């Protein structure tokens, strides 16, 4: 019979913080694994495209130092999934640099396994030609050009490469872009636990104590795998899990609340049962795993589409607010008239958002209440920062002085909060790739590199 496997999720996002008391409670539970998720696509394509992290290096350092030190000193394996936020090569390098610094400072020694998730563009192009690529729901199609234009393409690592790292004796695993579930499910699956339960528990654990009350992505959660069920419990004494909070969290950020799609198969939680076992702990059973006939790996790619410049200003004059559409049209015309032929050929985009009117919902905004004031965000995107800033400068001055019928405040249409008024937003990316690729051997795609620290 398989013995219990206890796992501590340090938090839901490396860098968001956690309670040190919760970490101590986690260590006291003598876990078989500690880990954290360090990435997400939620903040958009910039982090994958640029190779930078949303969470700053000093936040990663602050979170990692006590957790990694405690894990290594207590000989508890430690995993970081989706390292450096997007999991591409520069993201992993950032994480490795921080880990090496902590190891030097704390005199930590262990066998490190690094799993890279960068996927070769030629392999993606070949798979595309062979018809082995399909879009994720809602994603547009993929072309050879989009693949070639991508700054980075990563695949989401499943459980198998993590298991390969454990088999080769890795005590700390730093992995590139990972399925959130792989981070916590690999160890119990490797130890012979039911994959349906292990993946379901991992899905709940990947957000830290987000499934607790009060919810907290920035705190620790303990998961315990047993033969036919698992238990989850927040590690802070003042938090609890309830059957409702855990069941509700299962549906978080999922397109379908009943089926969790993982590379190795589908977890069906329609028959899952959630029960309270003590003040803080919930027991879950009945999640079923259906292996998929073909292994498919989710690819994420980001390409640069230009550079951004923006300004923000307010309008408080009723006549300006009533004429925003008229002014916007006039500004678009004025910018076009003022740009030279080369700039027009290079191309640019101008976007206007009106906060207080419909900045968040655009044409979907049901409210027709006339606002007393409106926040106006003007955004220019062009192939170079210089052209974007130039387009924005033209748009900003045109907007400030734009005449319109019934204008009374003839000194200026906008209230600028800042001098300088214009900001350089840097490179802009989009998700060029968000597709599934058929893969024969996950371990060949995501090899493990071992190193002794």
């Amino acid at each position: 019979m398989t013995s219990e496997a206890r796992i501590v999720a340090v938090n839901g996002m490396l860098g968001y913080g956690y309670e040190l008391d919760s970490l101590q409670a986690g260590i006291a539970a003598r876990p078989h694994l500690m880990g954290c998720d360090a990435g997400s696509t939620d903040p958009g394509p910039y982090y994958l495209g640029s190779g930078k992290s949303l969470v700053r290096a000093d936040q990663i350092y602050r979170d990692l130092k006590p957790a990694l030190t405690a894990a290594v000193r207590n000989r508890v394996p430690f995993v970081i999934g989706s390292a450096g936020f997007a999991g591409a090569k520069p993201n992993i390098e950032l994480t490795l640099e921080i880990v090496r610094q902590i190891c030097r400072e704390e005199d930590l020694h262990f066998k490190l396994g690094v799993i890279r998730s960068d996927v070769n563009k030629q392999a993606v192009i070949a798979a595309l030609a062979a018809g082995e690529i399909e879009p994720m729901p809602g994603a547009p199609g993929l072309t050879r050009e989009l693949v070639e234009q991508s700054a980075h393409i990563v695949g989401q690592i499943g459980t198998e490469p993590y298991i390969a790292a454990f088999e080769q004796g890795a005590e700390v695993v730093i992995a590139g872009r990972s399925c959130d579930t792989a981070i916590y499910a690999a160890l119990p699956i490797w130890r012979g636990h039911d994959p349906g339960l292990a993946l379901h528990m991992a899905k709940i654990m990947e957000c830290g104590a987000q499934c607790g009350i009060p919810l907290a992505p920035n705190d620790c959660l303990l998961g315990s795998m047993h033969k036919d069920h698992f238990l989850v419990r927040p590690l802070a004494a003042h938090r609890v899990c309830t059957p409702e909070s855990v069941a509700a969290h299962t549906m978080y950020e999922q397109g379908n609340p009943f089926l969790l799609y993982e590379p190795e198969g589908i977890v069906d939680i329609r028959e899952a049962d959630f029960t309270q076992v003590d003040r803080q702990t919930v027991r879950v059973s009945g999640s079923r795993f259906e292996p998929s006939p073909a292994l498919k790996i989710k690819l994420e790619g980001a390409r640069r589409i230009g550079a951004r410049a923006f300004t923000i200003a307010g309008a408080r004059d009723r006549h300006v607010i009533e004429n925003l559409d008229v002014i916007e049209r006039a500004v678009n015309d004025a910018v076009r008239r003022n740009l030279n032929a080369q700039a027009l050929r290079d191309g640019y985009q101008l976007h206007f958002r009106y906060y207080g009117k419909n900045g968040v919902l655009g044409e979907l905004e049901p409210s027709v209440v006339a606002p007393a004031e409106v926040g106006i965000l003007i955004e220019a995107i062009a192939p170079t920062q210089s052209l974007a800033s130039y387009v924005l400068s033209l748009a900003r001055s045109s907007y400030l002085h734009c005449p319109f019928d019934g204008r009374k405040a003839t000194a200026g249409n906008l209230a600028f909060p800042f001098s300088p008024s214009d900001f350089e937003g840097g490179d802009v990316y989009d998700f060029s790739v968000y597709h599934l690729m058929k893969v024969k051997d996950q371990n060949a795609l995501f090899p493990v590199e071992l190193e002794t620290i």
Partner: protein
Amino acid sequence: MPQLGDLASVIRSKNAGPFQVTIDIMFANAGDYARALRAPSFTAAEIARRYRIAEDEVALIPFARVHAIKITIPRRWGSRGSGSAADRDVYGAQQHGPLVDLEIA
């Protein structure tokens, strides 16, 4: 007649990946959940109208165990997914707005 935003204990939206937004509407009890679900206004067609998408693009999934209803729709903003040009809500966290004033009979 209450609005959905009053009846629900949680009404939230979030990305389900960069190209879909998923809306969770949770209720404090089975009665409120059932009342919302059987309201004549609570249909995929009405949701599609409010988000200006096709009815077959709306996935409406009741989850009785937790008195919740999940609605998954295509992302409406950005030239190609979240965080691309002309996006309005990178995390998709404020896209439940058009459903809050749905009248529940």
